[in-house]
């Protein structure tokens, strides 16, 4: 089983995140980079599938040099090797052009199943899985909270607002996962030490037959026109209980139409 996990490095949600004023892209210098949390669940699922069915887990990342930290973490968790697509031409790619670039790499390296988190904590478009499956011409299973491989097909539970759907798809397929699917393992120290000896293949756009005109800021179909800081949170209202606290809280909730 040839399992590929798409991993994105995102700014740590615990630190202050900023956009650059010059080209309105993410300021990667301003925040510590971490592996996108949902992608850790995808790595865990890939390792679980490998442990049950054999095969190899490849980590695929598109991002600047610094994204190698996230690759290292996925390898430390137990992935076998990595492909790092890194090229100045990719800077500023939107979801559509990112899906194009990743699909080109996936066509080149081949796969039985592609796993990824259902969304990233930075851009939060949640569209990459669908776009990838369309570009690759394979089934998409999104928002999976359970995946079982059965020979040349997979069965999954797909999380919905009302419960879950049971879906089946033939392989190869693209699967995006939600955090209910598993509990990602900690990288053990042995895993961390072993990770530095695992192969990481570096690719530039030309290596993956990516048309540079279709990626990056110039190739993006969407544009960040403007941005502003979120307004500071308003100070909460404190209700002092002078015998009528319950009534006041109820009145407040009613005024906001909660009750």
């Amino acid at each position, binding site marked *: 089983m040839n399992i590929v996990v798409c991993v994105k490095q995102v700014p740590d949600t615990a630190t202050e995140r900023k956009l650059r004023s010059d080209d309105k892209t993410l300021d990667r210098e301003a925040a510590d980079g971490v592996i996108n949390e949902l992608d850790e669940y995808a790595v865990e699922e890939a390792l679980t599938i490998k442990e049950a069915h054999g095969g190899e887990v490849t980590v695929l990342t598109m991002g600047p040099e610094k994204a*190698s*930290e996230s690759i*290292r*973490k996925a390898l*430390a968790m137990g992935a076998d090797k990595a492909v790092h697509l890194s090229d100045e031409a990719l800077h500023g790619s939107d979801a559509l052009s990112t899906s194009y670039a990743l699909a080109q790499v996936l066509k080149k390296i081949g796969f039985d199943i592609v796993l990824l988190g259902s969304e990233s904590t930075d851009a939060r478009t949640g569209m990459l899985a669908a776009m990838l499956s369309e570009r690759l011409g394979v089934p998409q299973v999104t928002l999976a909270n359970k995946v079982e491989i059965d020979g040349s097909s997979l069965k999954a539970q797909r999380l919905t607002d009302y419960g879950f759907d049971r879906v089946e798809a033939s392989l190869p397929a693209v699967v995006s996962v939600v955090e209910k699917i598993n509990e990602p393992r*900690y*990288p*053990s*120290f*042995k895993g*961390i*030490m072993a*990770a*530095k000896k695992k192969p990481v293949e570096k690719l530039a756009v030309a290596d993956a037959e990516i048309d540079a005109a279709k990626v990056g800021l110039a190739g993006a179909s969407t544009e960040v026109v403007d941005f502003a800081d979120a307004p500071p949170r308003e100070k909460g209202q404190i209700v002092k209980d002078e015998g009528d606290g319950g009534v006041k809280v109820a009145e407040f909730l009613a005024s906001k139409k909660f009750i």
Partner: protein
Amino acid sequence: MDLLRVDDQLTDEERLVRDTARRYAADRIEPHVADWFEEGVFPAAELAPELGELGFLGMHLSGYGCPGAGAVAYGVACRELEAADSGLRSFVSVQGSLAMSAIHKYGSEEQKQEWLPRMAAGRAIGCFGLTEPDHGSDPANMRTHAKREGSDWILNGSKMWITNGSIADVAVVWARTDDGVRGFLVPRGTPGFTTRDVHKKLSLRASVTSELSLDDVRLPEDATLPGVRGLRGPLGCLSEARYGIIWGAIGAGRSCYETAVEYARTREQFGRPIGGFQLTQEKLAWMEVALGQAGLVALHIGRLKEAGKVTPQQVSFGKLANVRAALDIARQARSVLGANGVTLEYPVIRHMTNLESVLTYEGTQEVHTLVLGEAITGLSAYR
């Protein structure tokens, strides 16, 4: 807060070690450790296999199932464990840096094969018996002795303040012989070998501390550690463990500091957060500086150790400076928390009382001071 951003100097690998250690401590230790401390227990049987699985035990050793991490990675792991509790870091130090490192450095191939893989996995626990009831800073005058009887050895004596003593599957015991001090591996259950726990401690309560008694304990020749004679054996292991303390103390100090900062920002007196008062700010600024300095000392000594250049005097420098800093930070933080600082609802007083042990074990502050005194003057004050 970490104004100097010392951790930016860590490699990717060291940061991953930090993150794993921090997450483990946050998930498995921090929610329970105040209760363990209050009840005076350390759930070693439960924690040791988990710590082994992640690679904490014998982390900086190579082969025999050990991860073979670098000195700084090991230090960072000690720091994150001790940010949860000094008792946890003590368990890991004694297992890895004392018991396993003694076998790794001085043991026969058979001894290594027998003990190290199980100890690395946390399926066997070790302790290290050097200190005696009457000989702490002065191990050269130890009373525990081993005498030949045919091809066997007969051990008599007692060891005191032994972390993991009563839960150990194997004790590394140092005893005087006609041929100088030698190390012996004493398995649990050996006739004549008994342990008794030290109770009524107000420090390291989430850690097992025992007395070991050796009463005509008969051991075969292959129970001796063949690789070393003399005090340089145990002292070589202690230098390893002291190194871990240089980092660990920062963890305890950082936990106190972070608690104090959070408290100072939210606790209001006279209508505003106490963090806005100059007296509180002076304390917090002092703590920030002390932590930054301690972090630089630890990293510097760690890199020297990785380069194979570190001296025992430098390790004494680090232990002296960083434990003192951590204890002072804990005391300052306690005062920021006012009355709340004395309860186990906050980690501060737990760290503070723990650090009183850390100040004394693995070479007292006084002894490390005299080591530096000798390095400076060329004159030994205690020999």
